[in-house]
């Protein structure tokens, strides 16, 4: 057998049964969310982009876990008004990371953070107020400013994807309720302004401080009921009973965003910021901490390599 014959034997194409109709439905659903969009200003720093994408993922997962109040309603908005700490184990974190396996997440507009020359420019781009802040003397680096435009994503539940993902790790997925299969969530976040001081990297001077203000994230649904979504996700064998109980115990799930707090690595306490309820999270090493609160339809976050008292003081100095 000469080499071409041998190659042809290896490269011969087996019969494939391609279901074009099904594929067309699938791509049609995804294509709705990817209308051609113009690129924004190139992102100068890859790390913040990755961080924001990861953070957005966590927020979406958290919203998906707790989104409620949409039963019997075509369009209902979840709006973040407060935060609740939810203690998660390493296994829980792994599970949260796998939640995208229950469907398809499509960004209509990916988070596109970019630096701006001034705070005024960030404010003009986002329509958010230009905040002023008093920082501790240990912050020696100059401020840098960034803007993140409004971001929209759709999540479509897909039972075949759930089954395939479970099978890939040797598990059997609980059946997805028919009402949930194919249903759509529209998730909206931002716009946001980011102010950073310093990098917090070894060798850099001074402490690091991060301030973010964003329009409160919201969710709309095409009608899948709360019971369907919550019941299905929390019944996954990989979701621990402890985590499920914490999620179910959240008092007002239509407006409470759960914040995952890794067990043993961080702790959370309720605090008062600007006279409203905030959630303070500190890591166990004392190297960093942050506080989140919501006021006037905006979500605020202040964090950095600072103590709890310093972080709260910075938060309260925001105007």
């Amino acid at each position: 057998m000469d080499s071409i014959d041998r190659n042809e034997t290896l490269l011969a194409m087996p019969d494939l049964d391609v279901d074009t109709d099904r594929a067309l439905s699938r791509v049609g659903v995804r294509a709705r969310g990817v209308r051609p969009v113009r690129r924004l200003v190139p992102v100068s720093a890859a790390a913040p982009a990755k961080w924001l994408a990861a953070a957005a993922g966590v927020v979406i997962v958290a919203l998906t876990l707790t989104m409620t109040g949409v039963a019997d309603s075509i369009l209902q908005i979840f709006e973040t008004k407060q935060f609740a700490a939810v203690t998660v184990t390493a296994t829980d974190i792994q599970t949260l990371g796998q939640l995208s396996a229950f469907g398809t997440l499509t960004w209509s507009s990916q988070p596109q953070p970019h630096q701006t020359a001034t705070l005024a420019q960030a404010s003009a781009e986002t329509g958010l107020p230009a905040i002023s802040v008093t920082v501790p003397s240990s912050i020696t680096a100059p401020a840098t400013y960034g803007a993140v435009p409004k971001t929209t994503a759709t999540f479509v539940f897909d039972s075949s994807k759930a089954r395939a993902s479970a099978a890939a790790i040797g598990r059997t997925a609980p059946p997805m309720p028919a009402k949930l299969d194919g249903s759509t969530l529209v998730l909206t976040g931002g716009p946001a302004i980011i102010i950073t001081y310093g990098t917090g990297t070894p060798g850099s001077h001074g402490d690091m401080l991060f301030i973010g203000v964003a329009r409160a994230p919201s969710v709309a649904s095409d009608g899948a009921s709360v019971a369907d979504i919550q019941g299905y996700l929390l019944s996954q064998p990989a979701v621990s009973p402890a985590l499920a109980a914490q999620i179910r115990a959240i008092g007002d799930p239509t407006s409470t965003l759960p914040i995952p707090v890794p067990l043993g690595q961080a702790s959370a306490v309720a605090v008062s910021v600007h006279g409203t309820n905030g959630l303070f999270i500190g890591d166990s090493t004392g190297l960093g901490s942050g506080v989140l609160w919501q006021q006037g339809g905006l979500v605020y976050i202040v964090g950095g390599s600072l103590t709890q008292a310093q972080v709260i003081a910075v938060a309260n100095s925001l105007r």
Partner: protein
Amino acid sequence: MLEKRTDVEADAVALIEQPERPWTAAAGVSLAFETLFRTEYARAVRIAYRVVGDQAEAEDVAQEIFLAFHRSHPADAPYAAPWLHRAAAHAALNAVRSRAHRIARDTADAGSRSAVADPESSALERERAREVREVLARMPRASAELLALRYSGLSYAEVAAATKTKPDQVGTRLRRAHDAFRSAHDAFRKEASRGQHR
């Protein structure tokens, strides 16, 4: 300057305000795109399959390239088919090259899967697919793309259009690609043989 998002938001609202509207492709794409999809999707899957050796993965690759095309090109563009063919081969090669470091694990997985459920012929086909995938991943990219395009069933004229070469040069280029495949395959076999005797 920020782009206006109103069209995206309007879509999102329309999408959730019309739950009775069927979620078919017709609701999400133009007729021209649907026609293009129906004509070229299976071919794109076959091109990708010739590289990755797994139908589900090949369909994922094909979906991504159609979405990429939808984002940036008019569906009735005259270059649509050759663009999609080349992109399918290119994206599939990217997929196998990016996972080259996981080959050992893939081999183990393939072995365990074939032992559980599938008949012998499927196991042989999988082994053949794995061998082709690894050899293509080692070859010069242009030659690997050429073989993927040709052995998925494309004509010389279609291969020429996808690779932007003259049709009368395709035969010569294919022969060179075969030589490169044979060399990479021989090297692969030698390595596999050494691995077995270790």
